[in-house]
C-alpha cells in the first residue's frame, strides 16, 4: 500500500541540566509531568514524533531529548546532525541557566548549521513578582545574537501553559521556511538509512 510520506523535522532540545528539557519531552510524548528527576520515565525513549497540521500541510515534528548526557559530559556532536530546529531552553526562575545560553547557542550554530533556533523560557509557573530573568534581558539576548532566534516562548510543563502554542508555532515556521527546501531535497545530497533486510527483499520481489 502506498502511503503519503509526511516530512519529518528533527527538533532538538538544548540547554543546561535541570531546566526542564526532559519535562518538555515528556509532555510532548505522553503528556505527563513529574516533579522529581526521574530517569525511568524516559528510559529507552529516544525521540518522539507528532504530526501537526499547519497551512494545509502536515508536518511531523520529531522531538529529541539529550538523554542526560550534558549532566557531567558534553552532548555528542551527532545529536545535532540533521536537526531542522533547536529549542534553546532555560529556566525562568534561574538566571544562571539563562546566562549559559550563549554557549549552547554556539554549539547549535557549530554542529547544526541549518537549524532554526527557538528560545523557550520554562517553569513560568515558578516566576514570582520579581522575575529572575526579565523580558528586557531576553530581548537584549535576542538582539545580541543577530536575530538568530526565530521565536520566543514562555512555558510551564507543570501547568502545560504555552506548550501547544510553542510546538504549533515551530511547526508553522518550519513548514514556511522549508517549503522550498523540502521539495528540492534530492537523494544526491543525503544518504539513506539502513533497514532490516526484509525490506530490500520486498523491493526485489516487486521488481519481478
Amino acid at each position, binding site marked *: 500500500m502506498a502511503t503519503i510520506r509526511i516530512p519529518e523535522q528533527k527538533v532538538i532540545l538544548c540547554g543546561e541540566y535541570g531546566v526542564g528539557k526532559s519535562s518538555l519531552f515528556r509532555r510532548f510524548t505522553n503528556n505527563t509531568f513529574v516533579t522529581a528527576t526521574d530517569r525511568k520515565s524516559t528510559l529507552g525513549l*529516544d525521540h518522539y514524533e507528532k504530526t501537526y497540521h499547519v497551512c494545509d500541510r502536515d508536518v511531523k515534528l520529531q522531538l529529541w531529548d539529550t538523554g542526560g548526557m550534558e549532566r557531567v559530559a558534553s552532548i555528542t556532536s551527532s545529536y545535532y*546532525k540533521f536537526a531542522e530546529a533547536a529549542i534553546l531552553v532555560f529556566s525562568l526562575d534561574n538566571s544562571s541557566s539563562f546566562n549559559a545560553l550563549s554557549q549552547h547557542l554556539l554549539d547549535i550554530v557549530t554542529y547544526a548549521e541549518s537549524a532554526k533556533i527557538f528560545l523557550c523560557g520554562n517553569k513560568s509557573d515558578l516566576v514570582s513578582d520579581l522575575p529572575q530573568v526579565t523580558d528586557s534581558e531576553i530581548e537584549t539576548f535576542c538582539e545580541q545574537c543577530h536575530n538568530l532566534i526565530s521565536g520566543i516562548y514562555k512555558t510551564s510543563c507543570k501547568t502545560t501553559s504555552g506548550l501547544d502554542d510553542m510546538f504549533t508555532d515551530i511547526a508553522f515556521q518550519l513548514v514556511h521556511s522549508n517549503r522550498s527546501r523540502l521539495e528540492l531535497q534530492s537523494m544526491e545530497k543525503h544518504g539513506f538509512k539502513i533497514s532490516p533486510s526484509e525490506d530490500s527483499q520486498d523491493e526485489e520481489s516487486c521488481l519481478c
Partner: protein
Amino acid sequence: MDEEYDAIVLGTGLKECILSGMLSVSGKKVLHVDRNKYYGGESASICPLEDLFTKFNAPNPDETYGRGRDWNVDLIPKFLMANGSLVKLLIHTGVTRYLEFKSVEGSYVYKGGKISKVPVDQKEALASDLMGMFEKRRFRNFLIYVQDFQDQDPRTWKDFDPNIANMQGLYDKFGLDRNTQDFTGHALALYRDDDYLNRPAIETINRIKLYSDSLARYGKSPYLYPMYGLGELPQGFARLSAIYGGTYMLDKAIDEIVFGEGGRVIGVRSGDEVAKCKQVFCDPSYVPDRVRKKGKVVRCICLMDHPIPNTKDALSTQIIIPQKQVNRNSDIYVSLVSHTHQVAAKGWFVAMVSTTVETENPEAEIKPGLDLLGPIRQKFVSVSDYYEPTDDGINSQLFISQSYDATSHFETTCQDVLDIFKRGTGEEFDFSKIKHELGDEEQ
C-alpha cells in the same frame, strides 16, 4: 562519580561504546568515562581540519582547503559491509536511526601494477580483465558453486565436504590459478594473509557469500560509509547507552583501576574519587601493563583535490592490493571518501592507505598504494602499535578490547565486541532485549 555501578567502561572508542550500549540496554547500571574531552578516542573523526594538521605538527592548512569545519577526517579507515555484523548490530540496537549512509561506489583489486573492478557475479567475471578466457570460465563455475552452496544441504556441496577439506582443495577442484586465488581470497573473502588456504573451505565460502549478499543490498559495492565520518558510529552507541540510563563523563583522568580480593576489580579511581563496580571494560590504552604488543599498523591519510585515477571518478572507493602482488605477507588497503560524505570541503577527497607493518621502514611499505592515488596535496603518516589483552578477564572481571587492526571493514571489530560481551556477561548478546519503544516506529 562516588557511586556504585554494575560496569564501568573506560574509553569511548567504537568497541567500548558498543559494549556500553549493549550493557545499558541489558539493564546494567553503566558509568562510561573518557580521559579525552571528546567522544570516540581513536575512532573519532577529526574536525575541524586545523586540528588534524596540529595533531601531526603541520602548519595550518591554507585557504584552498575550504572551511575547516566541513572536514571530518577518520584516523582509522574502515567501511561497513552492507550485510555484515556491524550493520546487524546497528539495526538491532536501533542506532541506525542516528545515522545516514552512502554506498561506496567502487571496489577494486590490484594486479600487475593496474587496478580492476572486483568481479562478483558471473556477468562481471566474464567481462573482467583480471583473467584470461579459459580462467574466466573456471572462475564463473566457481562463483556459481558458491552462490548455490547451502550450508544445510549437502547436495549443493557437489562431492566436496567444505567442513573438512580446505580452501586450497576447493580452488584446485575448480582449477583456479594463483592470480584468481589471490583476488578471490583477498578482495572477495577479504583475508589479510594466506592462512585461510589451509583452513576448512566453509569459512571462505561464507565470506564470499557475505561479500555478494552485501553487494546485493545497495548495489555498486558491498561497502557502506556513514555521512560525517566513522566518528558518528561511537557517538550513536554512546547515545543509546545514555538513553538507557548510562552516565557519561568526559575529560576525566583515570588514575587507577582498583582490585580487591583474588585480583578482582572493585572500582576505578580518579583523583580522590572512587567509583565502585563489579566489572571494568576498557581499551588497551587504559591498562598498559595488561596488554602485549602484537604488531604495528601503518596508516597514511592523504588529502587530495581529485578522485583516484582509473576509478571512473568515483567519489568513494576501496582498492585492495593482495600481498603476493607486491611480495608481502599482508595486504595493503586503500580507501577513499570525499565531500559527498560531508567529510571534506567541496571538491576534496580523503584517501587512506594502510597495512600491517612488516619492515623497519613502514612508509616504504605503503608506496604501492600511494602510487595509485595521483598527486597528493597533504600526507600524514602514523604508525601505531597493535595490542591484545594478556588474559581473557574472567578472573579479574577486567575486560580489555584489542586495538583496531588494519582490516578495511568492521567484521573483526564486532567479533571482538561480541566475544567480550559474552565473556563479561556469560551469555550471548540477546538482540531481542531492545525494546522498540514508541517513537522508534510509527504508531
